[in-house]
């Protein structure tokens, strides 16, 4: 198994407040890891440390075998981030670019692909998320669910080693959650490596092959979903599971 993400005793604090404590986590190629826990647990921070939108202060982080140096410059960071896709809670599509350009921009200006090739790749991905017909539209003309599917296509266009999903369905109208989860499930079936922060317990249970439970900036439990959801070990995890199943 090739490790894509390795956290070794990683810690982060905002001033005096620790937000990540001694994080040890390994995500292998093809893994779908569901990160769950109460709000304020540090789940999003964990994700944002992976692509260094937040820098960690202690411990070692390795992405695809390469150690992320604390003093990595913008060039090193860009190279790292090109390998790690991210899907945000609020989609964050670029409103001044068409759907096609949103998906093409990464391959064009980061990977340096020629226009034709980038466009072919983008159109294929838009077809995959069922939005090829919308390629000339602007994000503002799309529903939330459609925007999030474009955002997934945008991340995929970089051919990343792993995709981070930061509560990708939390900002969606309940009726639109399904179409996004469907795309995510499809990706998981295609063995895309995914680290998924989610409140969708059913999705975590059915699609993830591992659950990471976080609270108070720590990973309290890590187990396969069937084990975690039927017999959580840690008292806080037990309480959490009984609540969300309540």
């Amino acid at each position, binding site marked *: 198994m090739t490790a894509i993400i390795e956290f070794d005793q990683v810690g982060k604090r905002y001033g005096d407040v620790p937000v990540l404590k001694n994080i040890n986590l390994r995500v292998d190629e093809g893994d779908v890891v569901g990160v769950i826990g109460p709000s304020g647990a540090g789940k999003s921070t964990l994700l944002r440390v992976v692509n260094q939108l937040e820098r960690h202060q202690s411990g070692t982080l390795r992405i695809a075998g390469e150690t992320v140096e604390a003093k990595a410059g913008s060039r090193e960071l*860009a190279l790292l981030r090109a390998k790690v896709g991210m899907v945000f809670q*609020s989609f964050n599509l670029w*409103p001044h670019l068409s759907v096609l350009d949103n998906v093409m921009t990464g391959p064009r200006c980061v990977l340096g692909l020629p226009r034709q090739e980038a466009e072919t790749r983008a159109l294929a991905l838009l077809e995959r998320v069922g939005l090829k017909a919308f390629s000339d539209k602007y994000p503002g003309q799309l529903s939330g669910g459609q925007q999030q599917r474009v955002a997934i296509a945008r991340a995929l266009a970089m051919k990343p080693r792993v995709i981070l999903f930061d509560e990708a369905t939390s900002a969606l109208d309940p009726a639109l959650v399904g179409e996004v989860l469907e795309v995510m499930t499809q990706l998981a079936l295609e063995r895309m490596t995914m680290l998924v922060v989610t409140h969708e317990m059913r999705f975590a249970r059915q699609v993830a092959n591992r659950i990471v439970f976080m609270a108070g900036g720590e990973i309290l439990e890590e187990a396969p979903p069937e084990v975690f959801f039927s017999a959580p070990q840690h008292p806080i995890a037990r309480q959490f599971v009984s609540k969300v199943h309540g």
Partner: protein
Amino acid sequence: MDFPLIWNYLPYLLHAALVTIGISFVSLVTGSLLGLAFTFMRISRSRPLQIFVWVYVWLIRGTPMLLQIFAIYYWLPTYGIMLPAIVAGVVALSLNSAGYYVDIFRAAITAVPTGQIEAGQAIGMRPWQVMFRIVIPLSVRPALPPYIGQSINLVKNSSLVSVISVQELMFTSQSIYSSTYRVAEILGTAGLIYLAINTVLQVLQTWMEKRLSYYTVR
């Protein structure tokens, strides 16, 4: 109203209006470029550059435009820098407008949602790519109304360079009515010409706002 008189002097006024348009346009371009450069310095991480721009804006905004014009035309020569009146006028207008453009640009740039920037970073863009592909394009729309507003101020402020005898619309109007004593006719016509120039800018703003509204900013 002495309309034949207006008709007689109209060619002189229109010629002067071209001078007004010329110095305004050149000052708008150089002032904008300078303002943009100052904006980058202001949002850079370099403390000395930030302070330099802060002091610059402080001086420009805190002193009268008239004083700035005099300073460039009458004070710089004591340091050996002698500029023809029209050049001094353009320099004064450019430096003055740049001081105001800085904050207009900076406000629009800092108002770009963090999420848009993070999306660029997350995909592996370098900081300058994020700046030129995301931040600046997204700043245009919100910067437009105050930017055009300041540019209209620039056109009106160009009348101040009449004090150093640049023969633009205001100077020419003054010299006509001081010999004909028909103040209402001449000032009224000059006013209408200023209004016409600024209406063009106003229409440009409306047109650009419409053109840029293919997306909705959330």
